[in-house]
């Protein structure tokens, strides 16, 4: 678990282990220390709550990258029963950066899509670290069209630094593939729920992220660009990546305030990766709750509401009206 600890947690982790050591030490005494230990643990928990409810944007970024967070496959494997994975775009190739398929979620037949970064080095390479190629976006679209045809809701799990930036992706029309997905998802005649579970990175994330409801894990991030890229562009202003992470407003809370994220899913106290099962069940409950509402809508209303949702995102000064 060591490599799963981020800098900001180190003091509290140390305190926790000191209290553990203390407990062990005092257990050999006749005197009862339980009251004192209890007080200490209460204090520890208060500190923890304060700490973990105020993780800086930059540490949230690092948490998605440096820590063994639950990935799309964890959510899919746990939440979807009778799962059948489907492969390929029927045009050029299959893209393992995207897991796609059909199965049962609670009482629903659903189509699922998930960007998968991979768990170990071998899988990360196979899955290209979750960076999708054009064939991945086209595979997603093919399978979403199947969902539309057979009126099955779509659940997507977003977790990618962005679309693959290589020469081959350019040659096969990365921009055009993403654009098509945005257009088609905006009018897909079936409910779509998107869950941002880790790192939502730019157009590459958005390529499977247009939805009726966007749910986001408390510590997940979603950004127009990497904080490092932002700092690079603003280098003359001497703005560091942690400062960029603040400036970009990439946390679930900020995005909820902007009306971009519809619902924040609380993580377990120390983060989804410290209690994966709880995190997954919370995601499951949030998805179900939203799905229960969406499936009751007339398709035309659903699609029009989705259009209006995006139509209304944006902030500007219109002097004609002010």
């Amino acid at each position, binding site marked *: 678990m060591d490599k799963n600890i981020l800098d900001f947690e180190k003091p509290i982790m140390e305190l926790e282990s000191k209290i553990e050591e203390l407990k062990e030490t005092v257990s050999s005494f006749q005197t009862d220390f339980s009251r004192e230990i209890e007080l200490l643990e209460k204090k520890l928990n208060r500190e923890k709550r304060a700490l973990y409810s105020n993780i800086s944007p930059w540490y949230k970024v690092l948490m998605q990258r440096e820590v063994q967070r639950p990935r799309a496959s964890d959510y899919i494997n746990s939440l979807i029963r009778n799962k059948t994975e489907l492969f390929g775009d029927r045009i050029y190739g299959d893209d393992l950066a995207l897991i796609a398929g059909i199965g049962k979620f609670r009482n629903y037949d659903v189509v699922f899509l998930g960007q998968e970064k991979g768990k170990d080095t071998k899988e990360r390479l196979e899955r290209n670290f979750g960076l999708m190629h054009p064939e991945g976006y086209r595979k997603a679209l093919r399978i979403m069209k199947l969902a539309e045809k057979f009126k099955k809701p779509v659940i997507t799990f977003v977790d990618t630094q962005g679309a693959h930036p290589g020469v081959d992706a350019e040659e096969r029309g990365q921009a055009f593939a993403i654009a098509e997905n*945005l257009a088609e998802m905006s*009018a897909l005649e079936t409910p779509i729920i998107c869950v941002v579970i880790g790192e939502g990175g730019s157009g590459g994330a958005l390529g499977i992220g247009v939805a009726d409801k966007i749910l986001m894990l408390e510590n997940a991030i979603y950004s127009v660009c990497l904080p490092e*890229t932002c700092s690079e562009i603003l280098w003359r202003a001497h703005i560091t990546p942690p400062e960029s992470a603040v400036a*970009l407003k990439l946390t679930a809370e900020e995005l909820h305030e902007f009306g971009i994220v519809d619902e924040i899913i609380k993580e377990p106290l120390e983060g989804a990766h410290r209690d994966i099962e709880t995190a997954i069940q919370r995601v499951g409950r949030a998805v179900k709750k939203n799905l229960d509402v969406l499936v009751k809508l007339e398709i035309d209303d659903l699609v029009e509401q989705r259009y209006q949702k995006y139509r209304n995102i944006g902030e500007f*000064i219109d002097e004609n009206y002010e």
Partner: protein
Amino acid sequence: MARNTVNIEGSFNCPECGKSIDDEELLKNYKVCPFCNYHNPVGAQERISMLLDPGTFIEYDPVLNTSDPLNFPLYKERIKKDQKSTGLVDAVITGKGELNGIPLVIGITDYRFRMGSMGSVLGEKITRCMEKAIEENLPVIIFSSSGGGARMQEGMLSLMQMAKTSASSKKLRKARILYINVLSFKSFAGVMASFAGLGHIIIAEPGTQIGFTGERGRSSISQELPEGFQTAKFMVERGMIDMIVERNEMKSVLADLLDFFS
């Protein structure tokens, strides 16, 4: 790459072949170098005067301005600077006009303003002009000169403009309204991966650079670049672009297309 536009008194040095061209002659030649056919970038206002019938243009939403919603470092200053140097309020002009007598809705993104990147204002104006086109049943032509994609300084609000403008592009499609994209100079990232890549017909001017990931993004991955990578010609061969049209033929080609699909 060259960002030059005509602003040196009297004459202009072609950034491609280095030859000196008389300002007036350059303008008469649609800002295309008569020596090497280099297509100099064109500002939004210039594009309108090159393309539309004189006196027909009515601008939509001319005063829509950014509110700096993220209160982003240096953003206001840079916006003011670009506003001053270009005479634009943001990186796009939209409106209604006529081309050879054919009424249409037009939008033009301008590279000189924050590299033509898309924030809330650009996204809103593109979507509004598409919605107007549906209301009035007019064809839409959007010119894109956007090296920047989603505008970083408006964060996720910018990224969501990709979804918003793609959604209104899809509305055009559903309404069977002709939608043409013309890519000029540069078209990358969030602009290319949304409304600029969704036209029924996609045209590029010669030499235009087209793609998703620009030079900066690619630097992280070291790869040998194929010849002519991300040029208009390259993208036609890769099947992404319908055709390359010289700027001095643009008006007549667009007129033919508007006529055909009307």
